[in-house]
């Protein structure tokens, strides 16, 4: 269902059809849109892949679409296709977070390579995002007491020190600790440390 897809947005239908024909030759799924607006109307952020955008389009330009997606925190990688004399615009787009750009007329291999990289980047991003969501769920499964124990374990305190700090018996701390390891699917303290660090909200 969520097979990586190249979303092509270009007002020139012949160019759109030709891009589809080219990109499908490397067995990548393609969806096409004639305008930025129709893409926004149709796109579901769960769909992975990358976006191939013409910088200049009547109506909402490629740059404007990029801004809209950024505002909605949609991080799908964008590859801009620029025409004659639009390179500066493309450079600005990349500075604003676009994945890359190709200048018309472009080499097919260049475009396909960039698409491949963009898809890889998106998959990585999504994997990371999924992992973070998973982590958040694991952390959420802990009781407040377990959470307290975990925080102190991660700080490197011994069971005894934790027991003293929390006013519990060492035995109780040990039980909590085993529960935490189990709930977090952690094999070692270092796993817990790693997970705690990764659970920080992304900058």
């Amino acid at each position: 269902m969520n097979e990586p897809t190249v979303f092509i947005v270009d007002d020139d239908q012949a160019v759109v059809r030709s891009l589809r024909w080219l990109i499908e030759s490397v067995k990548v799924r393609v969806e096409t849109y004639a305008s930025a607006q129709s893409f926004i109307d149709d796109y579901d952020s769960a769909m992975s892949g990358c976006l191939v955008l013409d910088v200049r389009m009547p109506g909402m330009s490629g740059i404007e679409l990029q801004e809209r997606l950024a505002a909605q925190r949609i991080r799908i990688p964008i590859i801009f296709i620029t025409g004659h004399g639009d390179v500066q615009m493309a450079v600005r787009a990349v500075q604003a977070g676009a994945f890359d750009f190709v200048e018309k007329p472009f080499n097919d291999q260049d475009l396909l390579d960039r698409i491949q990289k963009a898809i890889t980047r998106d998959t990585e991003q999504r994997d990371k995002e999924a992992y973070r969501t998973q982590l958040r769920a694991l952390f959420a499964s802990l009781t407040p007491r377990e959470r307290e124990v975990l925080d102190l374990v991660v700080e490197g305190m011994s069971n005894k020190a934790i027991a003293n700090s929390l006013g519990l018996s060492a035995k109780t701390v040990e039980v909590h600790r085993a529960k935490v390891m189990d709930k977090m699917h952690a094999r070692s303290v270092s796993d817990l440390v790693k997970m705690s660090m990764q659970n920080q909200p992304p900058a």
Partner: protein
Amino acid sequence: MTATDMLPANDMLWLALVVLGGSLVAVLIVLGVVVARLRGAERKIEERESSHESVLDRLQENEYRLRTIIESEPECVKLQAEDGTVLEINPAGLRLVDANQPADLIGRKIYSVVAPEYIDIYRENMRRVFAGEAVVYEFRAITLKNRVAWMETHAAPLRDARGNIYALLGITRDITEHKQAEEQARRHQTELARVARLSTMGEMATGIAHELNQPLSAIANFSRGCIRRLRAGGMSPLELIEPLEEVCDQAERAGDILRHVRDFVRKSEPHLKPMDVNQIVRAVIKFTEHEARQQRTLVRLNLDPQLPKVAADAIMIEQVMVNLVRNAIEAMSEANSPRREIAIQTRLLESDSVEIEVADTGPGIDGSLIDQVFDQFFTTKPEGVGMGLAISRSIIESHGGRVRAESSRDGGAILRFNLKISQQQVHRRERADSIHS
């Protein structure tokens, strides 16, 4: 009876003496008178001779003085007969035509140093001088050393004592440098115009490049998609038919673009046809609708439905209108005008033309710049080239119309141009009138 018959012999002698004496006296008197007369005549001749000499002296002096003046005159001074024969010429004149000595020119026809294409003009001016006029004329000269030079001659008739014109007095100077400066200025103008045209061409070239990139990209993509599939194998050749047809279509599309360009370049002269101005305005509104909406600009039309057709090249006038409307939209959006309205009006002028007016509610035109807005390279836009209004003006002028800019009372800019009513239309109207009457 004689006196001797009546007188005695001694009386005869007496008489003879008296007669002789008398005769002698008479002879003496006559002689005296003659001598005296001769003396007088002699004196008169002497007197006359001496006064004649002084006049001659004075004349000679005068002539010498004039000659000195003329000889030392730095500009060419010459006398010519009616047939163009050079009668006299000063050293400056000889130098002017690279002659070594007077004989190189004097006694010869002046036409030997006039460039062939100017001989008729020269002759005509000579004719006018011998008809009594003073004239100034320019001509190209080819000197005796085949040097080409531009000359200017001030010529006047010379008259003898009875008032008959016997020569042309000409003062000629070399105006080659002046002419060259003029020529250079003219060439500079042409060059400027060419640069202006080239920059329009440059803009056009950018547009063409952009347009051509589309079908060319599509062709490349379709072809490479085919190659990749063929390399990968395992596909029916029939599957390639559709993309290859696309390739052909896109090649044709590229060809169409080039054909348009060719037509555009060829079509520098407007093809005037009877056109409905209001229809042109409406078409332009359609072209610019999107931009106007994007910039939250309201376009109001106030079109006179009774207008006669104008003689216009619709595409060119559309270009002008798109230019004016776009300028208005951009001016208002750049100035961040709170109220953004464009009012387009068409009306019949009392003369034989229709006026189209585009008024906006933008910042208007600075009074000191109003005369420059139609100049090439004049722009107030950060990325403007300054060709839009210049091209618009040349289009309107090629239609025999005029375009003007002004600021309206409430601050916006008003651009107006007029187009001549189509003559075909006028004829038709007249015919209709005559049928009715």
